[in-house]
């Protein structure tokens, strides 16, 4: 596109101005190709697509709006804009389409006639369908010092673009597809023996730990704060690399296979599975602050949750419960070590990069040690013992019994069942709505095998077995039987 093609003020600016005004952001044109939006300390710069000469300062992040109304492009960054880390690209057309789906009641405020929108967009329907595809392993690094049985696997795929927190994928644990040939045994050429080692038969379910967005710095959320209406419209953002965090169980065939994976390996995957979660629905309920309470591995899906919540501008309080801090020390080869202000700990560095501030991050360690220097949290926020206790004490300090009206907060917990039960007791007594992320042994992941059940309440109050993959994995804690 020629530069001259984008000069004239376009309806895009007007649309954007109205969109931001809903959340009380003020706008000012800076030049003819950029728009500066401000609210309090937050600032976002919007630029017309095509203006690559006028780059933003390296530390800032912004949103790019394409004034070309005929193009529909649903990716975070175009290939050729790789020089602009931290920019989100949307076309005006797409913005209108998304607004019509996500915030239909706000269309008049945007000056859009709902009747004039063609809702038959190409991406309107595929979003929640389950796909079967191949992902490429980028890295598979041990986590914990000394290196033990925990690993972080990063893989690349373009097929999970609609995945939201709480959803999960089923991963084949080795390259080369399932053991379904007529002759399942292979001749091991090196050893000249028949390879009779057990192979994982099923895929394994995994929640996403973190997503990485093409063209974006991994820590772009550290500084970016989006107006919530805009965030609601662009949710879910389109990532292409993902981390999962797993533990290779003693004698576990699947996770043992997983740890053998090397960069470049291609493995089969099924997803996204489970119910999607839209943070905008919390905003509609007047919720502004979210508490995330994770026990051990349970913090992984909550980290992905934090990423989405931050994009939507929620205040986050994250409570990380660990047996031992050393268990989440990252290996030297992990790229996170090269990040600014990184402490070399999984979860803690992730949350810091996502924009959870030191005063909002809490860690409790069962195996009491002196916390190492340089953790991205306030020293007072470190405690010995169970995370459930730490959370309870903190909640009581923040929302004392004298003000027992329901606070505008919501809690999410994920971890071992006794830990989630503890959080539920805390929340129940203090009228804090709690959602839990359940994990169960699965076979199909699609809702047909009825394996992954948990005990839930029916509408009539009786008990039933609920399929985690179909009804969950996110449940209202009050709908489960503890």
């Amino acid at each position, binding site marked *: 596109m020629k530069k001259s093609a984008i000069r004239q003020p376009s309806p895009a600016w007007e649309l954007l101005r109205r969109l931001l005004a809903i959340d009380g952001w003020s706008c000012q044109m800076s030049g003819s190709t950029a728009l500066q939006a401000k609210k309090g300390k937050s600032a976002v710069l919007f630029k017309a697509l095509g203006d690559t000469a006028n780059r933003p300062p390296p530390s800032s992040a912004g949103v790019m709006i394409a004034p070309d109304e005929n193009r529909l492009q649903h990716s975070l960054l175009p290939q050729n804009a790789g020089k602009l880390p931290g920019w989100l690209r949307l076309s005006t057309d797409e913005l209108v389409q998304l607004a019509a789906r996500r915030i239909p009641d706000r269309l008049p405020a945007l000056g859009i006639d709902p009747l004039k929108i063609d809702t038959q967009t190409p991406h309107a329907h595929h979003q*929640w*369908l389950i796909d079967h595809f191949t992902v490429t392993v980028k890295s598979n690094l041990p986590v914990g010092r000394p290196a033990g049985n925990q690993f972080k696997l990063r893989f690349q795929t373009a097929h999970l673009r609609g995945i939201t927190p709480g959803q999960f994928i089923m991963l084949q644990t080795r390259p080369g597809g399932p053991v379904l040939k007529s002759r399942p045994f292979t001749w091991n050429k090196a050893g000249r023996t028949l390879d009779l080692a057990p192979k994982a038969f099923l*895929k394994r379910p995994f929640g996403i730990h973190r997503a990485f967005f093409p063209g974006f710095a991994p820590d772009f959320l550290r500084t970016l704060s989006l107006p919530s209406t805009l965030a609601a419209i662009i949710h879910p953002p389109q990532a292409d690399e993902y981390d999962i965090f797993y533990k290779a169980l003693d004698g576990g065939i699947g996770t043992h296979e997983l740890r053998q994976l090397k960069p470049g390996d291609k493995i089969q995957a099924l997803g996204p599975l489970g119910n999607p979660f839209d943070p905008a629905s919390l905003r509609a309920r007047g919720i502004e602050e979210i508490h995330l309470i994770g026990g051990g591995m349970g913090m992984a899906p909550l980290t992905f949750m934090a990423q989405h919540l931050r994009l939507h501008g929620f205040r986050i309080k994250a409570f990380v419960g660990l047996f031992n801090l050393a268990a989440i020390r990252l290996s030297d080869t992990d790229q996170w070590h090269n990040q600014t202000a990184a402490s070399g700990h999984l979860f803690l560095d992730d949350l810091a990069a996502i924009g959870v501030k030191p005063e909002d991050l809490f860690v409790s360690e069962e195996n009491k040690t002196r916390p190492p220097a340089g953790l991205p949290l306030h020293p007072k926020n470190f405690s010995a013992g169970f995370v459930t206790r730490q959370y309870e004490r903190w909640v009581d300090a923040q929302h004392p019994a004298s003000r027992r009206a329901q606070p505008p907060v919501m809690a999410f917990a994920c971890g071992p069942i006794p830990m989630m039960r503890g959080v539920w007791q805390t929340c129940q007594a203090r009228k804090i709505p709690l959602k839990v992320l359940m994990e169960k042994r699965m*076979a199909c992941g699609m809702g*047909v*095998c*009825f394996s992954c059940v948990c005990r839930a309440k029916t509408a009539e109050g009786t008990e039933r077995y609920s399929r985690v993959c179909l009804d969950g994995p996110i449940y209202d804690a009050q709908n489960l039987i503890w």
Partner: protein
Amino acid sequence: MHNHSANPLAARLKHLTLNSPLLTASGTSGSCNEMGRMKNHRRILHALGAFVTKGVTLEPKRGNPEIRVMEIRTGLMNSIGLQNSGAAGFLQKELPQLESCRLPILVNISASTIGEFGKLAAYLRDNDREELIAGLEINVSCPNLHAGGMAFGVDPRLVERVVKTVRRHSRKDWIVITKLSPNVTDITLPARAAIEGGTDVLSMINTVRGMAVNIETRKPFLGNVVGGLSGPAIKPVGVLMVYQCFTKIPECRSLRVPIIGIGGIACWQDALEYILAGATATGIGTAWFVNPNVFIEVRDGLEKYLSRHRTTLAKLVGKACDC
């Protein structure tokens, strides 16, 4: 010589002509359109000849406690316990969703007494959605309350009575399939009994009973102790049982009572083995958990094999029994 326009994959189960010999195995594809959430569900449906639902009981069933499933080297053990929303829930909520599959729907039914089997069949018949159903598949592997929890399927006399009862309470144009349990010494005995009782089609095999022990807790692994084994591990068992019925029972050999071969099919070669051993159609279950494209791949594989050998599937039924 033969009509080239005819579908070489067509399979006849009594008066029902299927476009493909592939069926879903009961309990592995849900009972409402769970498959519809797959991106490739249209291609999956195209590969299928009929849809067999998860087991339906008269009253809703809660199912067994955890743990319900475990993996073995080439298969799966499960003890789900027939969790389902009951006949009323099935008719109201699930069956209407299945209609969009545009496939013949075969409803798998379970009960703990003979009387209950009759009531269930009658309940499915006497409602305004019975036209959506093409037939019933009787699960005779479920425990019989009167016989102390022993399965109906192990006693040929009971099999005959169950089939007779269901046949009597079914619509005349429904096909009645009897799904036999492999947990017997001689499969031809319950098979003959089912034919005596008036079954239109036999399907075999259900899961093989097994057990696993958790060496860490030193307790049975599955919540229900006993589990049903499925997956590639049990395929040879199923192929033999189809072969035995086809060779020893004249009604099967003459195709008056066709056989649906089920058990461990994971690729087109497996399906063909069943057909050559005497099956007219085949069901795929556990493999679908592992490979969501399995129906499509099996259908394509069969189609290629048939065109390579210039034959039709119907001509291959029982070919391995010709000696």
